[in-house]
């Protein structure tokens, strides 16, 4: 047992309102510079939808992540020698058009245009060439466009749904969608790090944050393919790969990452998980159906004296262990088992977990008004509609969050529903209390755990949501650096400007 600490995340999708504040907070701090204009280390996608870059989940096209060959894991893109053979041209690299060509507007023209008969305009111009641009796509071009034949219909996750299910999903006036905010998953078995020919991508031992060493990166572009989430980006101006750094200079000073801090819906939780580093490969190699539970199995109980002893022996500081004990992520992922990893079938063991969305609740339209299903004394669950009739089919959620294993999804939804019924019994009183407790027990919860889930979901404080391990000065490296003084820079520690010219 080799215990390591990982700063991990939970996103509660029922609370996400799709406002993109997280994306803007990130962009303003990290990617507002030349070569990074098109990058969104944090982005929010509409699901069903094609996402960013377009159809990133389609690994037949992008070859990201790992696949199981017999008992062994192999990068889907190529072998080690194959990578060296493809080094002059990576056949699976997305082009800029799969993201979008960044642009700005000719604002100068509004002021400096010569006098004329027409109002001056600010034409869009490319931020790469400076030439006028016919805009084809942009950030969140598919925002809220569920049902669109261009975007939603091409969502790779629809593969498991029957024609009928698809038709229902996109029925007029019953269109349904939800938001999927995405940042780097800071995986335990990162595909980007494995794919990097230079060995420039590494996991920080102290907190598990995955970083790209900019001085070691030689721009071979394999990481972009290796990451199945397409969360490593190629900076076309510096010729280096860049990715989400989980705002580690902020974490080291006790602040939540910018996207977490600014989240309007308060959907984000951050905390430490302790895991057994010796069993990562094992957890990544099981059959698809068992992937979620295998990943849960290597997350260790931070209260277990044996785990604590092993963690100390491996150099995990006491502050980190304490933070792991208070971690909201541990509760959501391991204790209550409400949060699931995104696309575990990519086998990178991602450490960002999602509580799947229940909304919208089942409802019918009558006379142009929305009627919620009537309260049924005999079946309190009917208030929220049955899980099996969920407007977003379970098979779709299973494709996203459990490698196709619908049982995992059903278990989560039963718990979420049971907590709602239990709270309904307390606040509205129209569900018998004993019945509510029985439903909780059926779902594998107790009144205590239901209260705790309710509290951490609905009324958590800032300190409940973000349990950041205290600064350990002897291992911190950037705690004295203010990110704002590094705006427009491409990293820390450079003696010269991170520009090329050669």
């Amino acid at each position, binding site marked *: 047992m080799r215990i390591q600490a990982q700063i991990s995340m939970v996103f509660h999708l029922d609370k996400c309102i799709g406002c993109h504040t997280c994306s803007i907070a990130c962009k303003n701090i990290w990617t507002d510079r030349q070569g990074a204009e098109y990058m969104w280390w944090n982005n929010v996608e509409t699901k069903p939808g094609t996402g960013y870059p377009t159809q990133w989940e389609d690994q037949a096209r992008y070859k990201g992540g790992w696949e199981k060959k017999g008992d062994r894991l192999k990068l889907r893109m190529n072998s080690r020698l194959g990578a060296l053979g493809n080094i002059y041209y990576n056949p699976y690299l997305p*082009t800029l058009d799969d993201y979008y060509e960044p642009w700005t507007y000719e604002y100068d023209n509004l002021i400096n245009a010569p006098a004329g008969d027409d109002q001056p305009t600010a034409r869009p111009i490319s931020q790469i060439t400076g030439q006028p641009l016919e805009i084809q796509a942009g950030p969140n071009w598919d925002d809220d466009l569920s049902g669109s034949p261009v975007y939603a219909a091409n969502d790779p996750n629809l593969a498991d749904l029957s024609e009928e299910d698809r038709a229902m999903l996109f029925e007029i006036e019953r269109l349904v969608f939800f938001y999927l905010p995405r940042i780097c998953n800071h995986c335990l078995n990162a595909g980007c790090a494995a794919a990097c020919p230079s060995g420039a991508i590494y996991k920080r031992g102290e907190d598990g944050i995955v970083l790209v060493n900019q001085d070691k990166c030689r721009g071979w572009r394999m990481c972009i393919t290796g990451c199945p989430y397409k969360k490593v980006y190629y900076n076309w101006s510096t010729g280096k790969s860049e990715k989400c750094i989980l705002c580690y200079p902020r974490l080291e000073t006790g602040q939540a990452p910018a996207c977490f801090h600014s989240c309007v819906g308060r959907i984000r939780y951050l905390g430490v998980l302790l895991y057994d580093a010796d069993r990562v490969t094992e957890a990544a190699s099981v059959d698809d159906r068992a992937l979620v539970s295998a990943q849960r199995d290597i997350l260790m109980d931070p209260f277990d004296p044996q785990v604590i002893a092993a963690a100390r022996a491996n150099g995990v500081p006491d502050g980190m262990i304490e933070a792991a004990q208070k971690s909201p992520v541990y509760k959501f992922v391991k204790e209550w088992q409400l949060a699931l990893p995104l696309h575990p079938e990519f086998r990178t063991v991602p450490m960002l977990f999602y509580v799947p969305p229940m909304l919208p609740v089942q409802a019918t339209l009558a006379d142009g008004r929305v009627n919620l299903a009537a309260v049924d004394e005999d079946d309190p669950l009917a208030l929220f509609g049955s899980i099996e009739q969920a407007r977003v089919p379970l098979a779709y959620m299973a494709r996203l969050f459990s490698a196709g294993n619908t049982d995992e999804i059903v278990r989560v939804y039963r718990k979420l529903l049971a907590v709602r019924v239990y709270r309904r019994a307390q606040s509205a009183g129209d569900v018998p209390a004993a019945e509510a407790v029985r439903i909780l027990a059926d779902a594998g919860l107790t009144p205590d755990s239901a209260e705790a889930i309710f509290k951490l979901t609905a009324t958590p404080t800032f300190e409940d949501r973000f349990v950041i391990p205290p600064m350990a000065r002897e291992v911190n490296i950037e705690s004295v650096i203010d990110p704002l003084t590094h705006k427009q820079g491409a990293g820390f520690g*450079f003696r010269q400007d991170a520009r090329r010219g050669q």
Partner: protein
Amino acid sequence: MADNVLFIAFPYAAVLVAVVMSVYRYIDHRFTYSSLSSQLLEREQLSWSSVAWHYSILAILLAHVLAALFPGFWGALLGGQFRLYLMEITGMGLALVAILSVLAFIWRRLTNPRVRAVTTRGDWVLLAALLAQVVLGFLTALLYRWGAVWYLHTAVPWLESLVRLNPQIDAIAPLPWLIKLHFLGGFVIVALIPFTRLVHAFTFPLSYVWRPYRVVVWNRRAH
């Protein structure tokens, strides 16, 4: 006298500049120590030109180097008429591929506005030098047949004398100017290495074959 400057002083100077400045750039400007890939900006043309260029020029370079390092072996290899024909034809074919792919690079950088935006003056100098060098090499092969063999008795002794720090240019002095230009071009490109994207040749990531897939770095290991 001119020959002494061009074929003794200049090669030494070029190698010295290449070594010193490449080391300096690695130490002081490591961030720039790579080829600035433009594949993200344009992939269709690059998909064949880059692959064709690299494999053809690497094969040609390998032949030059092998012959210079093991002239005896090389001479024996080309001892048969058929094998000599095969080598000459292969060499010329690869040279043609190299010329076409450099032309494709130039065309791509001229016509694609995105790629032009990331093209530096150094790129143009390098492309011009590479084009000149592969054209000169091709013409040498075409106009002065059996270069695969006479190379062993002209350039190889000269290069060997340079390496032994006992420079002798007798073997190449009587050669036609076209061939001498090809020699010079080689050292011009050597001298260009540290000032252009050519440094990426030194960074070929061979260690990827054996390094572990997972890399963990501790800021400061407590014990």
